[in-house]
């Protein structure tokens, strides 16, 4: 690390190093950017202090501690290694005698931080054991509970907080024009993919992206090119109360923030009423992807904060109807703009293949509870019993349930008939071989894999969740409840094997639905126009 290779965007823009760093080990690019985020945060919240920062890391599975109250303690756990120390101060601070000591823990390697975490306690351990050993029975009970909560959520209005005060005109200031983003974390996911695109769009509009994340993570994607030139502050909690307001106030005083775009960041959502009170000219929007029937999720938080916000961008008609029709938001406050062009390109109706070999049935997605890979395995076992060599299977993906899924696959005797691929294999390879994609998720917005499958001429059989009805042929939507899912999906795939002409009919219906959906407004276009307005 030298003068010519700064830690990240914050160096120079917010803080400066007051001496050459004393490092005993090299920092990885990811660690450099995490440290930059931590120093940016502390320089903003302690603008009059010289910061002497001890930098730690570990080889064990611990998340970083960058901004929380642990950074004020000068002792640490035995497994931490001291990487070195840096001294820094806010770039506008003068020579100060007062030194504040901080300890920034960069955490363990990202590879060790992937996996399912169960809350502590015997009850949760027992629950997790049941979930792992009898996943279908566990899921059946879970879906019953979801049904009950879904009905309750439909029936009850969400309370709203705050109100849209009179908007003050924005004064022109000689500061860098910026947009403040709230993000969940810097890891891979559909919502994150879209969030990253909006960061690109902000840069293209000439705005400085300032990114706050609120979830514990190793933030493996922080090194992506999209974050070059962006001010990234990965928050770790709990922050002290005074730091919360100071952080936001300093950001608004040092940058000309024209707008806020929240992507799945509860911390920022909950501070919007305060921001609305003190910085009333700022336009506030969010992007919403999925209704979480069990917990309410981000949609509930967004509804609670809706009175202080200017617009909600939603990616599916289901969400639009939920917000307007069910929750009573005004129609002009909800913007439907889809992500159809995020991964798949539609150049016209793809030709569905009907070959003479076995029917290849694929699962493509992360191996997580939400995607229910165990249901796909049960479906494969059932189809294998009924259809023998007329079907084969591909399972493409990895995730926290990978080990568990491998065990279940072996137990069901599927190892010989199922090709298993992790995310290092390009998904195009699976699309080129598959005839049918099965979406077994228990909840979705609209799956991007459905678009990819259709673009590759692959039929999609999907659980009727989220807005999947917008893109899947009516006959190929199957119930979410696991036993009905297995029964209906088995029947449909059996019919595909027995009646190739029916496959063509379904393919035409699927293509028509995809085309109609693709004709809806695009999120990129709406966001580009929004940011250009903010930049003007």
């Amino acid at each position, binding site marked *: 690390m030298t003068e010519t290779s700064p830690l990240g965007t914050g160096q120079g823009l917010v803080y400066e190093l007051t001496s050459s760093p004393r490092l005993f080990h090299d920092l990885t690019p990811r660690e450099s950017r995490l440290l930059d985020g931590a120093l940016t945060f502390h320089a903003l919240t302690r603008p009059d202090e010289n910061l002497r920062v001890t930098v730690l890391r570990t080889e064990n599975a611990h998340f970083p501690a960058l901004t929380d109250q642990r950074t004020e303690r000068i002792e640490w756990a035995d497994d931490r290694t001291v990487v070195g120390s840096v001294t820094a101060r806010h770039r506008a601070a003068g020579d100060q005698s007062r030194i504040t000591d901080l300890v920034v823990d960069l955490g363990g390697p990202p590879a060790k931080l992937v996996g399912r975490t169960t809350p502590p306690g015997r009850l949760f351990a027992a629950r997790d054991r049941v979930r792992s050993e009898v996943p279908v029975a566990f899921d059946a009970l879970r879906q019953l509970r979801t049904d009950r909560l879904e009905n309750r959520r439909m029936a009850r209005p969400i309370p709203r907080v705050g109100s849209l005060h009179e908007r003050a005109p924005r004064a022109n200031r000689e500061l860098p024009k910026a947009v403040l983003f709230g993000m969940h974390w810097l890891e891979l996911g559909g919502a994150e993919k879209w969030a990253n695109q909006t960061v690109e769009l902000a840069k293209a509009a000439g705005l400085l992206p300032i990114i706050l994340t609120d979830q514990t993570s190793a933030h493996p994607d922080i090194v992506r090119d999209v974050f070059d030139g962006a001010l990234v502050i990965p928050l770790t909690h709990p922050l002290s109360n005074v730091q919360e307001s100071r952080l936001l106030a300093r950001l608004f005083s040092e940058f000309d923030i024209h707008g806020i775009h929240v992507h799945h960041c509860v911390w920022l959502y909950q501070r919007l009423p305060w921001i609305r009170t003190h910085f009333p000219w700022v336009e506030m929007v969010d992007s919403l992807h999925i209704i979480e029937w069990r917990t309410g999720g981000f949609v509930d938080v967004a509804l609670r904060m809706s009175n202080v916000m200017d617009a909600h961008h939603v990616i599916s*008609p289901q969400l639009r109807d939920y917000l307007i*029709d069910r929750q*009573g938001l005004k*129609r002009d406050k909800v913007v439907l703009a889809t992500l159809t062009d995020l991964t798949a390109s539609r150049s016209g109706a793809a030709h569905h293949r009907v070959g003479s070999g076995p029917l290849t049935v694929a699962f493509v997605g992360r191996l997580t509870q939400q995607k229910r890979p165990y249901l796909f395995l049960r479906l494969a076992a059932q189809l294998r019993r009924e259809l023998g060599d007329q079907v084969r299977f591909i399972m493409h993906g990895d995730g926290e349930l990978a080990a568990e899924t491998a065990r279940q696959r072996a137990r069901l005797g599927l190892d010989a008939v199922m090709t298993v691929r992790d995310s290092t294999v390009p998904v195009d390879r699976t699309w080129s071989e598959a005839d049918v994609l099965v979406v077994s998720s228990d909840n979705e917005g609209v799956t991007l894999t459905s678009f990819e499958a259709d673009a590759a001429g692959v039929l999609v059989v999907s659980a009727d969740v989220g*807005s999947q009805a917008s893109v899947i042929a009516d006959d190929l939507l199957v119930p979410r409840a696991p036993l009905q899912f297995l029964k209906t999906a088995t029947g449909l795939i059996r019919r595909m094997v027995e009646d190739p002409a029916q496959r063509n009919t379904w393919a035409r219906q699927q293509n028509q639905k995809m085309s109609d*959906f693709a004709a*809806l407004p695009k999120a990129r276009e709406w966001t580009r126009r929004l940011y250009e307005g903010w930049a003007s």
Partner: protein
Amino acid sequence: MSNVAAVIVTYNRADKLGKVIENVLAQDRPADQVVIVDNASTDDTARVLEQYEGRPSVEILRLTENTGGAGGFATGMARAHERGADFVWIMDDDCYPDSDALRELLDGLEAAETRMGLRLPFACSVVRWSNGDICEMNNPETTWDWGKLLVHGQQNVLVNACSFVSVMFPRWAITQFGLPLSEYFIWFDDQEYTRRVTAAGPGVQCLKSTVTHDLGANRGVNFADVNANNLWKFTYGVRNEASYRWHHEDPFAAARFAQRLFTGLRAGKVPMRLRLHLARKFVEGIRFDPQPRFPRTVL
């Protein structure tokens, strides 16, 4: 601009259907989509509809069996909802809307909502008979404060219920309350549905929006008129209203309906055999309690 779908449900009215469709297509604020539900007609309806095949804004749904007005409206409204309609304007196959009927519904609803400060679940037209009189069968039931908007200069009246002859529902009402009950088949489906959606607030009759209902005779529903030829319609009517009063109001409302039924039949000197038949239908209605189906969000 809002996306409005017009839904026309037809069964064996080839002689009138063309005029209905032409009047809908000639609106000065045209509907963005027109959904025509053919309830398995056996007359020349197919020939009439042929002329509209392939028009980009017209979709024809041909059902394989007659599902009654209730089933037809449920199918058409579900389709319009699936196609992303913000408003669904529905009517029978003998309803001729005046050229500004739709625009006046949209303007009237917007003005009423602004004045009332809340969303209103439907807007209906004034329904005239062929000679210009009010059509007795389609006169809506007003609320106790029906003149609330009139006193502010609006040509809008607050109503509790109306018929399915030119009524427009906003999308949110269909999402929130579901579709008409197909099981009713015919009669009282409109009353049940409009009363169901008024849980969210009153409906509004827009006095400037007018349509003509081309009925043979201008007469409302009257149990004194029951005879062997029209018994089939009253059969549905009695079962459906008994079901509604019992399950959605209370047993006293059902008893009042029974009394009205009894009085009407007696006044009309309806033969005892027909009276007993309708009494059985009343009892059937107490056991009959269909639940609404909800449309699927697609676009």
